[in-house]
C-alpha cells in the first residue's frame, strides 16, 4: 500500500530504496510499526507498545499517540512479521524522525514499538 499524499517537503537521508517511491511514505494505512515504513514523509503515531518504562521514555520525548512526526530516515523492512528479505534494510533497523522541532534517532527495538499511519 502506498501513502495517499506525496510529501514534497520530505527528504530521505539515506537515499531512496528501489522498492520505495521517491518522496512518498510507503507504509500500510492501518497502524504498523515505524520500521515497516520505507519512504520519507509525515506519519501519525497511533499507538506505543513495549514495556511501561520504554513507553514512558518515548512519551517524555513527545512520541505519543496522536502526535505527528516526519520520518527523515526510514529503517525499512526491519519490522516484525515481515517475510524473508526484509531483514536488511538500509538503516539497519535504525531510523531518524523529526518531532516537536527536534531530530530523534531511534533503534530498531524502539521503532518497532511505535505504530504509525501515513498522513
Amino acid at each position, binding site marked *: 500500500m502506498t501513502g495517499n499524499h506525496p510529501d514534497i517537503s520530505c527528504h530521505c537521508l539515506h537515499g531512496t530504496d528501489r522498492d520505495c517511491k521517491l518522496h512518498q511514505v510507503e507504509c500500510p494505512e492501518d497502524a504498523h510499526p515505524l520500521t515497516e515504513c520505507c519512504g520519507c514523509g509525515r506519519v501519525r503515531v497511533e499507538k506505543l507498545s513495549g514495556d511501561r518504562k520504554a513507553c*514512558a521514555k518515548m512519551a517524555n*520525548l513527545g512520541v*505519543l499517540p496522536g502526535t505527528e512526526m516526519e520520518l*527523515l530516515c526510514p529503517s525499512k523492512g526491519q519490522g516484525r512479521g515481515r517475510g524473508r528479505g526484509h531483514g536488511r534494510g538500509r538503516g539497519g533497523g535504525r531510523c531518524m524522525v523529526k518531532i516537536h*522541532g527536534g531530530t530523534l534517532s531511534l533503534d530498531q527495538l524502539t521503532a518497532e514499538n511505535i505504530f504509525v499511519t501515513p498522513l
Partner: protein
Amino acid sequence: MNSPLHIALAGNPNSGKTTLFNYLTGARQHVGNYPGVTVDKKEGNFTHQDTTIRVIDLPGTYSLTAYSVEELVARDYLVNEKPDVVVDVVDASNLERNLYLTCQFIELGIPLVIALNMVDVAKKRGITIDTKKLGTLLGVPVVPIIARSGQGVDQLFDTVITTGKQIEHSTTLLRYGPDIDEALREIVPQIVTGNLLTDTYPARWTGLKILEDDEQILDKARAADSELTTKLIERSKTLTHHLQSTVDAFPEAVIADHRYGFIKSILRQRVVSRVFDADRLYTSDKIDKVVTNRVIGPLIMAAILFGLYSFTFNFSTFLVDWLGSLFDILSASVDNTLPNGPIKSMIISGVIDGVGGVLGFVPIIMFMFFGIAVLEDSGYLARVAFMMDRIFHFFGLHGSSVMPFIVSGGIAGGCAVPGVMATRTLRSPKERMATLLTVPFMNCGAKLPVLTLIIGAFFSSHQARYMFLATVAAWIVALLAAKFLRMTVLKGESTPFVMELPPYRFPTMRGLAIHTWERTWQYIKKAGTVILGISILLWAMMTYPGLPDTDTARFAAMRQEISSSQQIDKDRQIQKVNGREAEARLRNSMAGRIGIALESVSRYAGFDWRTNIALVGGFAAKEVIVSTLGTAYSLGEVSADNTSSLKDRLARDPHWNPVVGLAVLAFIMFYAPCFVTIVAIANEAGSWKWAVFSMVFNTFFALILSIAIYQIGMFLGLG
C-alpha cells in the same frame, strides 16, 4: 558576610547550559563527580552587582523521571540542595521540546527563571518569541539571552537576584485530564495528612510520581510509611487499569500528553510567530542529508576520525618530546646533585621516570580531548554514534563506543588512557563498562616498538602485513571480548539507542579550551597521587633485594681486572660486565623472582624467566618491555627506539623462534593494561574491582591464547 546566592543551571542537553556556565565562571570552575556516580559535577563562582553567586551546572536532561543517572542526579540536587534559584536554559529555536522540562520544574514548585537562549538562531530561522507573554502564561520570568556572546546575561542575573530575594513564588497548576486529576484529588490529601515525604517534596508532585510508578519515589515512600504507600499504590493501580482499558495508555503517557498539550496551548496564544513553515528543513538537516548518507557518511566519518587521530598523535609529538627532554634534564641534575644510593635511585627511577612517563601522556590527552570537544560541541559525535550503532550493537556496545576504540589504537598507535577517559561520552552504564574494559586490547603507541621488535626479528619479510594483521586482530579480539562480557558479567538488555541529534553548531574557542583543560587537569592530579605511589612500588620490585655483596664484589673485581689489563676494547668488555651485572640484579629482584616463579606456567607458552620479567615490567608501561628485554638479555640499556641489536639477539637466541615470537606478540597485545590505564579504569568505573578484573581477565585470556599458539605451532613443527 552574606552567603553567596546559590543557583543551578538546568535544561535539555544542547540547550547551551554549559556555554552559559563557561561564560559565567570562565576558569573559576571546579569539576568533580556527584557522589557514587561518574556524572560530572561542575561548580563555580562569579560576582554580579556585588552579589557573589555560586553556580552549579546540572547534567542535561529531557525530563525529571528516574530513567537515567543524569535525571536522578539533577532532580536529587534540586530537591536535596534546594538552590535559591534554578535557571532553566531553554533553546529558543526548539521551544516546544525544551518547555517540557520547564513544566516539570513548575510541578516541582522550585524558584525558576527561564533563560531563553539562542534567540539569534531562532531569529535566523524566522521564529519570534513574545517573551513577556510566555513568562506571564508560564508564571515564570523569561529573559532572552545569547550565551555564546553574553548578550542578555546581565539582565538574566538581575532577574535571578530579584527572584532569589522573593520569599513567595507564584505557582502554575497543570491539569492532566479528568482521570488523573481525580486520582490526585484523592491521594494528595492523604500524602499531606500522613506527612509522606512532605519535608522533601511537594505533596502533589509526590502524588504525580506515585501515579507515574517512579521507582525511586516509591522506594522512599515505602521506607517512610509502608502502609500508606501500599494504599496509594493500590489507587495508582486502579487508575492504570482504567487508563489501559479505556485509552490503552499508562498514566505517565497521559501525563506527558497533557504537559505537551499545556505547552501547545501556550505557544498557540501568539507567543511564537514563524516566518517559515514549522517543518522547514534547516541547514543542519541539509548537512545531515550528506554526512549520514549510507555511502558518503561512513567515508566522511572515517576521514574525520583519521583526522582527529592524526591531529592528536602528530601535533602532540613535539610537546611529548619537549616534556621528555625536561624530565631527562631533571634526572640528570638529580644524578649530578645527589650521592649514589637508594634515595637517588628511587627519585630518578621511581619518581621522575614513573611520574614523568605518566605526565608524558598529558599532551596526547590534551590534544585528544580538544579534538573530541570539537566533534562533540559541533554535534557531529552524535551522528558518528548513530552510524556506528548498527555494528557496535551486535557486540553489545553502543554507537558512541567507536571514539574510545579509535583513540585507544583502533588505528595502531593510539593510547588507552585517553581512550578509557573518552568512554565518558557514553551514557548507558553496561555498554560504557564493556567499552572501557575492552579498549585496552587496541594496539596503543606504547605497544608499537614491542610489536616492531618481535615482528622485525621473526617475520621481517612480511613486516607490514603482520603489523596490519595485528591491528585487525586487536579489533576482532576487542569486539568479541565485549560480546563475551555482555553475555556474562555485564549481561543485560542493551540500552535502547534513542537520542536527540543536536543541530550542527560552531564550537566556541572558550568552551573548547575549558572542556580540554578540565579533563587534562583531572589526569594531571591523578599522576601526582595514585600513580606516584604505584610507580615507586614498581621501582622497588625491580630493585630490591639488591645483589648480595659477594656478587657485587665479584662484578667490581671483573671490571677492575679489565681496566688493569692490556685489552684493546676495554670499554666494550666493561659494558658487557655491566650488562651481566644488570641481568643478575634483575634476576635477584622481586620482579625477577616473580619471573622465575611464573616460568612454571609461562613455559607452556614458550616464555622463559627473562621474557617474564619484561612482561612484568610491561605492566608499568609497554615500552618498558623492550628496555627490560635488553637488560635481561645482557645488553644493558636499550632504547625503545633503537631495537636493532636486540632484534638480532632475539632472532639468534635458542629460546626464541617464530612460534615463541608469535605467542609473545599475542600475549603483549592482549595482557593486562599498563598501570596508568588501570588507574584510569578504576577512576572511570568508580571501583578498583573493575580495574582488577581487567588485569586478571586480560592476562588470563592472553595466556590461554599464547599457550594455544605455542602448543599448536610446536605441534605443527613451525618452531
